[in-house]
Structure formats: structure tokens, C-alpha cells
């Protein structure tokens, strides 16, 4: 390996400079406020977790985990997502009473990137988990809150596509009979290789009706009308139940008045293997990657509790990209003082701070090029030399 430059950072790690920090903070606080209004409470969990517990539960690919060893020789990971740590906390500490639990977080997660090292390997997620409530109402709440908080953050054009993992499972299993055969097709879906999927379907020894059902499945995308089409394709009870859940979810989101951004997409599958029911992704037109995702999962079982939960996570960096140009930081003023009028300067600054005006106090002796320096500020006040006599 070539020698590192002194200024280099590990691959995929980024500095947040003042301007970006302000924007991030602004967006973050808007979303945070909405989430708090809905009664969710924020928590923090450690950056490091055990590889064997949270690392294994997280469903992020092994090669994407940052691993290190502690002094006892246990493998640790930098948390690759927040869902698994929160499931751990909920199962071990918070879920004492059998009540629904509403938890939110704002945290950096870490995922090593294979390709094009500049992609962020550490990024901020804001999200919620509604734990121990099996109702579709809670799935609807998660989606409605996501829509509401994204709107509050200033995002105008976005779309949420909702699917149901049980529908895919049931459809494939019912037609193909065995898990093994279903897995072959599922892999094509994960890889988004529809050409391969179709070729494989056509090569199978199935009735033409069943083949057509498997092919029609790829078109199950759109508005409310897709529900009917989906009911035509799946035959068994559990598959139908998944559809009815989505139908109910549609009604719930409708009652929230947030249905405009919603579409169905039964073809959504996730490499996150812990999803058990409704799952969704959020897209904003000008960003090539989903800006957030979520769904219902049974992750708490891995930590010894038989509760299911539902939640969303939004990537703050991609949300910022989607928001585009935003108003920058609040303007900053400057007071240049000399020793003689130092006290006056401090007093002035204090009154300005009380009015929430941002102001820099700068000793004139600390600046070499005064003109260039003061140019950076919206306003500069000079308090220099002897105080002018009061006439």
C-alpha cells in the first residue's frame, strides 16, 4: 500500500464542514420535532456492538461490517444499522410491560463500501421503531409519520412504494412447492434480474397458468387497483391475508390523509432478511438511490422476545441531496475590538446573543488582513481606541 497522505481519511469517511453541518442540523431538527410530536422518544445506543449478537442480527452483508477485536478477543462491529441495537435494548430493558413502545433514533451507522471508495461508509440515519404492536394501524402510523416528517423537512416530490414480503414468499412457495425451488426465483428478484427470472420461469415444468401467474407477479405495481390483480394471482390463505393487510394499510394511510405519495409494489424484496410483513422504500425523483426504507420485522425474537415491530429509517445524506439547494446558515456578524473597549464589546455581544443574533468577538490584534477577514461577515462593528466622548 502506498504511504498515506497526512490529511487522508479512511475510505468512505467524510468530514462535515460548517455549511453542510448547518443544513444537516436544520433538516434533522425539523424531522426530530415531528417525531417527538408523535410521542416517540429518542434513545442512543453504543457505536460498538458484539459481532455475534447485533452484528449477526443486523442482516447487513458480512463484508460490509467494520470489525475489530476487544481485549478479550471478542469480535466487535461498528453498528451497521440501528434496528438491531434497538431490538436489543427493547428486548432486554424497555419491554418490561407488555405495552407498545415508540422509540426514535438519530445516529451514524457504518457500512464498508466495496465499490468506488468515495461512497459514504458512515452515514446518519433518522428513524423510528414502533415495537410490540401487531396492528396494521402501527404500520400505517410509521408510514404516515415518515411522510409527515419528510414533508416537514421540506421534501416535496417523493414516493413510497409498499410491498409485503409474505406475499412473495407464499406465492413462490405455493406454486413451486419447495423452499429450495422458491429460493432460485427469489435470488433473481433480489438481484433485480427480471430477464433471468422470466427465463427460469419458462424453463420450469409448470402449467401455463402457473407460469403466467409468476410472470404477472412482476407487474403488480401501481395504485389501489393492484390489490385486485394480486388477489387473482395468489390462491392460498396466507398470501391473501398479506394482500388484505396491504388493503387495510392503504385505508389507514388514507385516513391519515397521506395517501398521495403512496404506491403498491409487490415486487419489492429486501436483502434484510428480518422483514416479516409490510415493507417499503422511499424515493425522491432526483436521487438515484432510495432515501429511506422500512417495514415490519421479527427481530426481537433473536433477543428472546416474541414481539414484532415496525419502523422506518431515512438516510440524512440522501435526503439532503433530494432537498437540493437550501437556505444556508444564519448570517453571522462580527465585532472587532481593541483592548480599550473590550468590556463594551463583550457587553454588546451579550445583548446580541440574547436577541439570538450570531456574533463573533475578534481581538483586532489577532487578525492580519482586516479587510479580507471582515468580508466574511454580514456586518462588522468596530470598537477600537478610546471610547468617544459623550457629547
Amino acid at each position, binding site marked *: 500500500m502506498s504511504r498515506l497522505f497526512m490529511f487522508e481519511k479512511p475510505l468512505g469517511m467524510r468530514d462535515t464542514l460548517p455549511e453542510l453541518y448547518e443544513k444537516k442540523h436544520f433538516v434533522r431538527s425539523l424531522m426530530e420535532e415531528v417525531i417527538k410530536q408523535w410521542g416517540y422518544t429518542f434513545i442512543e445506543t453504543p457505536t460498538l456492538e458484539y459481532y455475534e449478537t447485533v452484528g449477526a442480527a443486523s442482516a447487513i452483508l458480512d463484508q460490509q461490517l467494520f470489525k475489530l477485536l476487544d481485549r478479550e478477543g471478542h469480535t466487535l462491529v461498528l453498528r451497521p444499522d440501528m434496528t438491531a441495537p434497538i431490538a436489543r435494548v427493547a428486548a432486554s430493558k424497555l419491554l418490561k410491560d407488555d405495552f407498545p413502545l415508540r422509540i426514535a433514533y438519530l445516529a451514524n451507522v457504518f457500512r464498508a463500501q466495496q465499490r468506488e471508495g468515495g461512497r459514504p461508509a458512515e452515514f446518519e440515519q433518522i428513524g423510528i421503531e414502533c415495537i410490540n404492536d401487531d396492528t396494521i394501524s402501527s404500520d400505517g402510523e410509521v408510514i404516515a409519520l415518515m411522510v409527515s416528517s419528510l414533508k416537514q423537512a421540506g421534501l416535496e416530490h417523493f414516493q413510497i412504494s409498499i410491498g409485503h414480503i409474505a406475499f412473495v414468499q407464499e406465492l413462490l412457495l405455493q406454486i413451486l412447492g419447495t423452499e429450495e425451488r422458491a429460493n432460485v426465483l427469489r435470488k433473481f428478484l433480489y438481484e433485480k434480474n*427480471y430477464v433471468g427470472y422470466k427465463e427460469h420461469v419458462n424453463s420450469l415444468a409448470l402449467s401455463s397458468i402457473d407460469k403466467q401467474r409468476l410472470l404477472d407477479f412482476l407487474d403488480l405495481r401501481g395504485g389501489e387497483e393492484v390489490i385486485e390483480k394480486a388477489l387473482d394471482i395468489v390462491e392460498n390463505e396466507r398470501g391473501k391475508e398479506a394482500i388484505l393487510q396491504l388493503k387495510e394499510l392503504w385505508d389507514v394511510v388514507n385516513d391519515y390523509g397521506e395517501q398521495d405519495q403512496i404506491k403498491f409494489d409487490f415486487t419489492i424484496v429486501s436483502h434484510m432478511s428480518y422483514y416479516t410483513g409490510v415493507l417499503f422504500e422511499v424515493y425522491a425523483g432526483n436521487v438515484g438511490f432510495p432515501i429511506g426504507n422500512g417495514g415490519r420485522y421479527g427481530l426481537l425474537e433473536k433477543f428472546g422476545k416474541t414481539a414484532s415491530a415496525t419502523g422506518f429509517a431515512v438516510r440524512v445524506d440522501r435526503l439532503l441531496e433530494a432537498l437540493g439547494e437550501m437556505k444556508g446558515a444564519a448570517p453571522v456578524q462580527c465585532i472587532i475590538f481593541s483592548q480599550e473597549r473590550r468590556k463594551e464589546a463583550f457587553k454588546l455581544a451579550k445583548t446580541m446573543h440574547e436577541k439570538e443574533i450570531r456574533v463573533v468577538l475578534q481581538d483586532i490584534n489577532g487578525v492580519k488582513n482586516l479587510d479580507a477577514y471582515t468580508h466574511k461577515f454580514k456586518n462588522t462593528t468596530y470598537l477600537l481606541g478610546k471610547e468617544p466622548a459623550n457629547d
Partner: protein
Amino acid sequence: MTNWLTIAMPKGRIFEEAAELLRKAGYKLPPEFDENRKLIIDVESEGLRFILAKPMDVPTYVEHGVADLGIAGKDVTLEEERDVYELLDLQISHCYLAVAGMPGTNMNDVAPKVATKYPNVAAAYFREQGEQVEIIKLNGSIELAPMIGLSDRIVDIVSTGRTLVENGLVEYERIIDVTSRLIVNPVSYRIKDEPISELVARLSKVVAWEGR
């Protein structure tokens, strides 16, 4: 521009066939389309913007979402493994990936070497065969490698086999058949689903008709 579709087209060999396919699907592309030196061509009447890219780069443009769709060979999508939907086999530019080398030779036991423009595909293929080989990445004139002793084998795209024959090489194994695919960005696939579905439907019809 919000409802426009941006399509990344591969420059060179596949371009003409792809353009012809689009014309057959009823998209009115201007005649100068084919001889254009421009990198971006807008077809206002159809609401289509074409960007002309190196074939190997098409999936990159699509993955990042600067192009909604792209036309790329299966060889390229296999090599690049980008997170894009592969929606349609366009059944154009038929060819295949193959292992070739000088006639009557074996792989070197001590230091087997394979030269290729497709290091990922080649590495995966030999790994599946249980062989550990050194992959040498070249950017063109791959046939040269075994002729001058840089490698024992090459992994390359073969369409007629003429280049191999002219350089005295023979084909040893066929890896996979290759045709061009229509690929789509996952976000565009959802947000612009209507125009994309229409394009896919129109192209599928042509593909089915051609292949009847």
C-alpha cells in the same frame, strides 16, 4: 424535463441495432441520430434524452440515476454487478463470452494466467471451476496476450469467431451467451413507472415479433 426519460446508449457495435429497435417500437428518432458526434441528444417529440456512453459505463450511469434506462450487454452487467433492474432481453447483438488460447496448449501448472477485459467474470468463472488463476486486466486487443506469452488463456467476447481465427487462437470453453439488455434505475422504475412501462411494452412487442 421532469417527465422525460434519459436513456444511456452504448457507443459502437450495439448502438445501431439498439436505435433500429427503438425505431421499430415506434419512437421517431431523427435520421442524424446515427451519425451524431454529440454526447447528449434530445428528441423533443418523444420526450427522450439519449446519452452516448462507453458500453462498459452504461450500468454506472443507470445505477446513479443520471440515466433512467440503459442498453447494455449481459457481459457488461455481469462484469459491473450494478444495482439496476434488468428488465428485458432485447435479443440484439448476440455473442458469447468464451475462454480461448493458442491451439493445443494447457494452462501453466505453476503460474496459470488469464488475460481479459472482464476481470470479475473471468475470476468468478475460474473460481467456480476450482482453479486459481492470475487475472490480468487488459483494455483491448486481448488476443495479443496468449500470442506473445503474457497469458495462457483469455476470456473475451466472441461474436463471429473471426478475430480468434485470424490470430491463430482457438476457443476452449463457452462461458455464457450474451445479448443486450434493457436496464433500469430502481428509483426511476418506481417514480417514472408509466413511461418506462410503456417503453418496455413497446420494445417487448418488437422483440417478440422479431424472434417469432
